[in-house]
């Protein structure tokens, strides 16, 4: 699976989230600051309080697809240890997409919340 949601009690069945959601999260992380692939997955785990975790096997295909679509762009930089790493950053197109996706997500999640919070008879 692409993205697993780990529950507090540890190992339990992870639920799948759609590819689109993963893309949105990755792009949002990169909106904070440019970083390389490893850092993106670490940061995602961190800011979500260890709830959201991207499997490494799905991270890079997703990043490459986002780059192909033009939402993010990449450049090779020499990092602090003198080794070359690929740093991704958001493009203007990606920023516009992000706003759109975030709006959609808002509407979707509030709708779901409303339904879930309905008082049972």
């Amino acid at each position, binding site marked *: 699976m692409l993205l697993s949601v780990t529950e507090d009690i540890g190992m339990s069945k992870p639920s799948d989230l759609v590819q689109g959601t993963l893309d949105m999260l990755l792009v949002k992380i990169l909106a904070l600051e440019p970083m*390389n*692939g*490893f850092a993106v997955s*670490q940061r995602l785990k961190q800011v979500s309080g260890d709830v959201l975790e991207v*499997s*490494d*096997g*799905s991270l*890079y*295909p*997703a990043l*490459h*697809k986002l*780059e*192909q*679509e*033009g939402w993010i762009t990449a450049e*090779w930089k020499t990092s602090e240890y003198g*080794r*070359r*790493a*690929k740093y991704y950053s958001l493009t203007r*197109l990606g920023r516009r997409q992000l706003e759109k996706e975030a709006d959609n997500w808002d509407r979707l999640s509030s709708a779901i919340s409303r339904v879930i919070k309905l008082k049972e008879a």
Partner: protein
Amino acid sequence: MRPVHWLYTIPLRLRSLFRRAQADQELDEELRDHLERAIEEYVARGMAPREARRKALLAIGGIENCKEECRDARRVNWIQDLIQDAHYGLRMLQQNPGFTAAAVLAIALGVGINVGIFSVLNGAALRLLPIPRAEQVVSIDQILHGRFKRNSHNGASMFSYSEYLNYREHNHVFSGLLAYEPFVNATLSGGKMQELLGALTSCNYFDVLGEHPTQGRGFLESDCATPGGNAVVVISDDLWRGTFASDPSLLGKSITLNRTAYTVVGIAPPGFKGTEPIPSSFWVAIAMQKALDPWSDRLADDNLSWLALLGRVQRGVTMQEVQADLAVIAGRIDQVHPGRTTSLSIRAATFFNRQTEREILTPVVSVIFATFGLVLLVACANVANLLLARASVRQKEIALRLSIGASRWRLMRQLLAESLLLSLIGGTLGSLLAFWSFTSITRLIISHLPREVSTLAVNVAPDFRVLAYALGLTLITGIAFGLIPALQSSRQDLNSALKEDGARSGPGKRSGRLLLSVFVGTQVAVCMILLLATGLLLRGLYYAQTVDPGFEMKGVATMFLNLGQQGYDENRGTAFVGRLRQRMSELPGVIEVAQAECAPLSHDFSADAFTVPGRVEKIGIEYNHVSPQYFSVLGIPIVRGRGFLPGETHASPGVVVTESTARRLWPDEDPLGKTLRESSGREYSVIGVARDAQVAHLGDLHTTYLYFPEGTPDNLRAYVLVRYAGDFPGTAKAIRNAVQSLDPDLPVDVAKLEDYLEVWRRPSRIVAALSGALGALALLLASIGVYGVVSYSVSRRVHEIGVRMALGADGGEIRNLLLRQAMRPVLVGVLVGVAGCGAVSQVLSSMLFGLSAHDPIAFLAVPLLLLVVALVASVIPVRYGTRVDPMVALRYE
């Protein structure tokens, strides 16, 4: 994705397309970098380095797999896939050279002949005229409906002179409208005598076409002002170079056509041969019509169809506007002829344009295209078979790919790409062959046409239309033979394919074997139809060669005199013919001389609708005006009554009917003395009955025909028939001298009567030869197909054969079993083919010279031939395959 977005991503996609190697290397670096960081992280958390490395690798799910997925994500999709498929396909084709060669050859043959015949059609009917800005030029036909009386000189859809002037004066859409009469015959005299073909044209002919004579001038309006006024002529470049040997001072000199002198005012540009498929040698102003053909005044006849119209449309005017504008004029003309409505057909001007020509061409072309298409179908079925056979061999490989996650669609796409590659190679080869050979084939066919059609102005060289057709046909062919095998191969039962030996499971599958049988059956059926057509045509030809035409052809010379065209009038003509016949009968070696309006089988005929007084029924009967010696010169016996007496002319009411006519009109009665009425009301009585003879059309022995006595109008246009003893050249020379002694300027052409029969046979011979070649081709393809399928299925069942033999079956039993199974689809195909042949024979019946369209010999011999060939093609691989040691067979994989 929004369109703008997609455009934005093109540079990125192009970059990944072209810098794949670099992208791969970067990907590698990126993943390794990730791994190192992950390992560091784990080590920092306290894990051992080796453990950390293992966990990191696990997390990434396998480096190669991850790389593959990244590559997938970057893929520019179909372009890159296509290139990949093409590479793979080429490799596969190279690995199986035998298969590739067989398939490419079959496709090349099928596509090649179709492209070739299309290029012929293109040159004849689709290509615009070879004049400047030909897309602006249209041809106009008219079709008359309702009640009307109309005379026709050249074609029923043509116009009269006054109608042409009307259209020219009152249209608002043409920058120029010209009219011309095609196929005008003239004799060039003075020095070397020659029969020429040309056209009578309106004086704006060269201006509208844009082909101004390179030497001298075209016509001026003053040339057409008065009928018979200005005798000027423009000659073709070929005529100038040939007959006049490029005489530089020819301009201004006069030449004699049909006894009138014309001044040469211009020489047409080299390469311009007029606007008809048969090249014109001269163009004369239309005002000179009566001078060229004194026997009819066409300019004055308002109700005669004799002129073809071509118009150059003004720039910016649409076809609808042209149609509407001309329809107004047509309506105004119709008002003078109550009860008649005219509809106009306006088309881009090509060489075969007129309604009447199209009506003749269309069925012929359809038949030809259908036939060639059938051969292509056989070739496709052949290649599909080969592909199916090969796919079974690759079954294990395909199953493996499907099981590790390739989508079925992806696999099918790749198999289709292979097929398209095959068909592109084959199609290109075939098209090249076609272009190279069809020009020579066309020339060969033209050389066999009647003498009057010595060249054709059509150009069969390939142009964009032909190339587009070739490409389209190639692609369709590729999909046609590739689709079913691709569908078949990708639909696999993975389990059994992987478990079992792939070789063995192939023919075991019911649907796979059925498909192979269906393809074999199809090939055989189509081949059957083609061969049967050939068989019928050949039989018809043989029949025509041996049939007794009912009259004596050998030892008769014939000569055509067109005195009217040479300026004779009735009296002069009668005197001339009388003296000529007298002189000819005195020649040594001449037994008898006769005269007739139409010579037998000369393509000249007259017909009228006759009635029997007292009956309502009108019967169309062909007739001939003959001198009394006609019957004895041709050896046609008079079986009842008498022939004509010397001195008996058209004024007397006696006619001679043929046996069939008598049977038709007065069955079971004595025809002598009975009356016939012709359409003008004049009545005749029967004085004699002649034996039936195929004088009108070959193959028509029992049609109605009757003979009138000769009359003086016939002396101006007649055939003279001479029965002679001795050799032909000597007799011909003597006849020529006799004619020239009476009139040195009269062109005379003496031919053998047998040659007329030749002209009838020649087209059928060409058609029979062509269809024979096609039939042989189809037979070759079908037999290769049968051989291939049978040998393949035998080789697949070697294991099973080994088992049977080990269990005690002997070789003969096995052979019989295999043969029976192999011949089953062949038999089905033959039966289907025979059933389908009924339609074919109907179409061919016009070419069969009276042979029955369901000729039993052809319908028996051809299926037998096909069965024998298929049997041989099956026996060889079966024999070969069963001559095997059982122990070897059992171990065979």
